Every structure is written in structure tokens, then in C-alpha cells.
């Protein structure tokens, strides 16, 4: 009896320590190996060199990734938030809710590479967009849709029902309540859900390998042109072998820095809101 408890105790402590170590190791490894590459030229110049990327910088990849992420966030978050609103506030039949949940779950189960296949055949080939930011962005948008939907729905459900009920009691219509009470109150959580979704989209490579990202392109100027993207650039640098390994560390450094920064932002924002809520 004592032993069983002890084993669990050991297991619990080991688990948490391993997770801590792994996370710290990942960030430390990339930051230590990558920081020497980072310079003003690396960030603000286009890649060059005999083997592409062995010299120069990654600026087009950064702007390209931004373009992809923005497109994906716009395409993914609007339907995601509306679906969540519908499920929580408008849907009356529990069977309908269940159906939507099942569909969303299936959605999140679709592997990202298959979304890439879908976007390739529909947008790149059939609608003749060609490889472009829009086709890639749509694939990414579909990918982050369930991610944002689940978070948004959770936020709406956790909102103090007293607030919504008082609004109804004062005679506000449902739409009015949503616009003036629900959405502003949930702004912070929605915002952080969308930021995290954006990070997810930024880091994903599989859906855009053959839908929008290319090995070399200038800064993105139009939605209908292909662009570079950080994760694909990293993958290509790695695939080229040891000549461009330093640059690969640098690219990974930039991506990890963006992830770290947005996560810290989201955490601080969420905590501050939490704090003000508790003070009231």
C-alpha cells in the first residue's frame, strides 16, 4: 500500500521534471546555437549564395510567413468564432450541438497534410489560383479553425451567466447582448486564442509545401503570388545538408523567438485580465 503511493509520487515528480527539462532544453538549444547567426543582415536581407540560403538572410521568409499567418487567421477565426457563438447562444436542439461538436472534432482530426492536398486540388489546380498565399492561407485557416472554435466556445461557456441574464432581463435582444456584453467581455480570451492559432499556423509546414510556399521569392506583394515561409525555409536548409546548418539554426531561432514572445504576451494579457476580474 505504501509502495503503490510512493511509486505514484515518484512518477508524478519525474513527469513534471522531465517536461520542464525538455522545454528548457528545446529553447536553450536553439537559442544557444542560433544566436551567433542573428544579425541585422540576417533578418533584413534576402537569401543568397551558391547553394540558396547559405549566405544572406531570411527577410522574405519572415514577411511571407506573416502574410500566410494573417490570411489564415482572417479565414479561420471568423467562422470559428461565429460557430462558437451559434452553438452557445442560438442553438436550441442538443442534437444539433452534438452534431456540430462531432464535425468540429473530425475537423481537428484531419491531418494537416491532407488539408494541403485538398487545397492543392481545389484552389491550385481547379480554380487556377496557382501556388499562392491565398491557397496556402486557406489550408492553414481550415487547420486552425477547430483550434480557435474550441477555445472560443469554452470562453463563452465560462462567461458569468448572470451578466447575460441581466442583459436579457433589461430587455436587450440577443444580438445586442452579444455585441455589447459577450464579445467585449471575452475579448481577451478570444484574442489569445487567435494569437495561439496564428502561432500554430505560422509553424505549420505540411499544408503549404505544395500550395503556396516556395524555396525562393521576393517579399509578398499580392495574395495571388507564392511567397517564402519560415518553416519551409528551415526544412529546405536542413535538407541541403551541412553547408547551411548555421542559417538553419538562425531561422529556427527567429521562429522560436516569435513563439516565445507571443506566448508571453498571451499569458501576461490573460493574467492581467484575470486580476482585474478578481478585483471587481
Amino acid at each position, binding site marked *: 500500500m505504501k509502495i*503503490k503511493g510512493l511509486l505514484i509520487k515518484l512518477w508524478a515528480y519525474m513527469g513534471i521534471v522531465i517536461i520542464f527539462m525538455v522545454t528548457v532544453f528545446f529553447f536553450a538549444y536553439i537559442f544557444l546555437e542560433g544566436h551567433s547567426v542573428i544579425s541585422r543582415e540576417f533578418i533584413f536581407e534576402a537569401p543568397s549564395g551558391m547553394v540558396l540560403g547559405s549566405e544572406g538572410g531570411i527577410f522574405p521568409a519572415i514577411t511571407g510567413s506573416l502574410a500566410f499567418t494573417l490570411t489564415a487567421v482572417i479565414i479561420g477565426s471568423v467562422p*470559428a468564432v461565429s*460557430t462558437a457563438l451559434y452553438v452557445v447562444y442560438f442553438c436550441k436542439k442538443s442534437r444539433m450541438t452534438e452534431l456540430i461538436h462531432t464535425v468540429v472534432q473530425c475537423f481537428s482530426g484531419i491531418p494537416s497534410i491532407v488539408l494541403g*492536398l485538398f487545397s492543392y*486540388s481545389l484552389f491550385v489546380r481547379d480554380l487556377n489560383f496557382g501556388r499562392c498565399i491565398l491557397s496556402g492561407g486557406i489550408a492553414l485557416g481550415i487547420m486552425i479553425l477547430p483550434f480557435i472554435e474550441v477555445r472560443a466556445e469554452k470562453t463563452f461557456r465560462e462567461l458569468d451567466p448572470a451578466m447575460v441574464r441581466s442583459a436579457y432581463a433589461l430587455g436587450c435582444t440577443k444580438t445586442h447582448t452579444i455585441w455589447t456584453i459577450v464579445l467585449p467581455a471575452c475579448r481577451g480570451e478570444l484574442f489569445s486564442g487567435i494569437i495561439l492559432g496564428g502561432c500554430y499556423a505560422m509553424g505549420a509546414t505540411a499544408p503549404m509545401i505544395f500550395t503556396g510556399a516556395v524555396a525562393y521569392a521576393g517579399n509578398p506583394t499580392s495574395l495571388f503570388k507564392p511567397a517564402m515561409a519560415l518553416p519551409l525555409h528551415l526544412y529546405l536548409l536542413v535538407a541541403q545538408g551541412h553547408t547551411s546548418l548555421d542559417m538553419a539554426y538562425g531561422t529556427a531561432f527567429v521562429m*522560436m523567438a516569435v513563439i516565445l514572445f507571443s506566448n508571453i504576451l498571451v499569458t501576461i494579457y490573460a493574467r492581467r485580465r484575470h486580476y482585474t476580474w478578481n478585483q471587481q
Partner: protein
Amino acid sequence: MTFFTMAVLAFVIIFILKEALPVFREVSLIEFIFGNEWMPVEGIGKGTHFGIFNFIAATVYVSFLAMLIAVSVGLGAAVYLSCVASSRARTFIYPFIDLLAGIPSVVYGFIGLNVLVRFFLKTGVHTGSCVLAAAIILSVMLLPYLVSSSSESLLKSRELYLKAGTALGVDKWYTIASVIIPASGKSLLRCMILAIGRAMGETMAVMMVIGNANLFPTLLGKSESIAAVIALEMGTAVNGSTHFHALYAAGLVLIVIMLAINFGVKNLIKKL
């Protein structure tokens, strides 16, 4: 807007189905799934073969192995988070775990290639890329999902039972081991299934460390997962060729496996 969302999903599946079906005009379903020769482009007079059995086996093998590793670490951490950590500590640790979830899969693959593959090379595995390396990297990717979802369900049963256990004078850890974990068994199973789905669909990280050779997966041998085949060969497949459709069919098989596991376990849980 909701119906739009629903319609998009139906559309995605119908589209994949439409692109996948032509392959079965040339290759029978049985041959496609259970064949293990994959020769998409006519080689030295051998003709073309489309059999994805090895890829399926590799996908399942890697995912389950990764799951096993992730559960053995993650469940412990979840127990810590739900039953030991104070709520202050929790607000600090959760963002930390989210951070792990935010790392792009390419970076996982990159680190796997530079750390794990090198390590395996030193220990004497040929070229270093192997199924085990892929499983380890994948398990780290699964950890955050597993920990955050399973600690949530453990937290619920802790609130139900821990105080009762303490009131009866039972050791806290013994209560956790013999009451709280079994009580949340069902929802833990559900968390694992969600994580398995993620593991199967993962492309980049696995592709970078698994070695990409059409072989039946063994622990220290190379192999290739379904997602990796699609990502690697889509660029070279001629539009409209059998090869092209075969890749869509492989994607379809991947979806079907995942949905089958998902719904199978859901029904199983209901029956238990």
C-alpha cells in the same frame, strides 16, 4: 456561418474522395492497402506498384510507440499538476506547457535530426534515422496535449474524492493511485485518443527523422509514414496520373484510420 463551416468540412472529405477514387480503377483496394511494394514511377521494366501497407504500419507503429512514451511521462506530470501543485504554481506551469505546444513541428524535426539522430548514429544505428527517434520526438510533441487535457480531468476527480480520502485517514498518494486515477480512466482514454490522432497526422517532424525508406517498421530501422510519403512525393507526381491519385488515396486511408479509432473508442467508452 456555422453551416458554412459544416459545409466546408463535408466539402473537404468529398473532394479527397473524388480525387482518390480513380486509383482503384487500376489497383484493387486489397492490393492498395495490403501490398507492400511502392513503385510509383516505372522503373527497370518492373512496372508500377501501389501498395501502402508498410506506410500504414509505420504510421500506426510510430504513433503508438510515441503514445506509450508520452503517457509514461505525461500522466505523471498530470498527476503532479492536478493533485500536488498549488493553483499559483498551476498558473505558472500551464503557460510553460503551452509553450511546448507552440513550437513548430519543423523545429522539432530539426532538433530531432541534430540531437537524437546524432545520438543514435553514435550508438551504432546505421545513418541514425530510425523509428525510435521519430517516436521520441513525436512523444515530446504529444506531451503538452496529453498533460493539459488529462490534468483537467484528473482535477475533476480530485475534487470529488481527495477530501473524502483524507477524511478517512488514507495516505494522499494512495488515494491518488487507487481512487483518483481509476476514476478518471475513461476521460484519460479519451485524451489519449485525441493525442493519437495528432500523432498520426504529424508530417514534418516524423519525416525528418524517420529515414524515409519503404520498409516494414522495426524499432531501430528506417521506415516512412503515410503523411511523409504524401509530402515527399506530391511535388513530383504528375497531375492526373495514378501516382497522383494514389497519394490522395493514401490521405483518405489516413483519415479513415483516424476517424475509425476516434469513433471506435468513443463507442467503447460509452459501453463501458
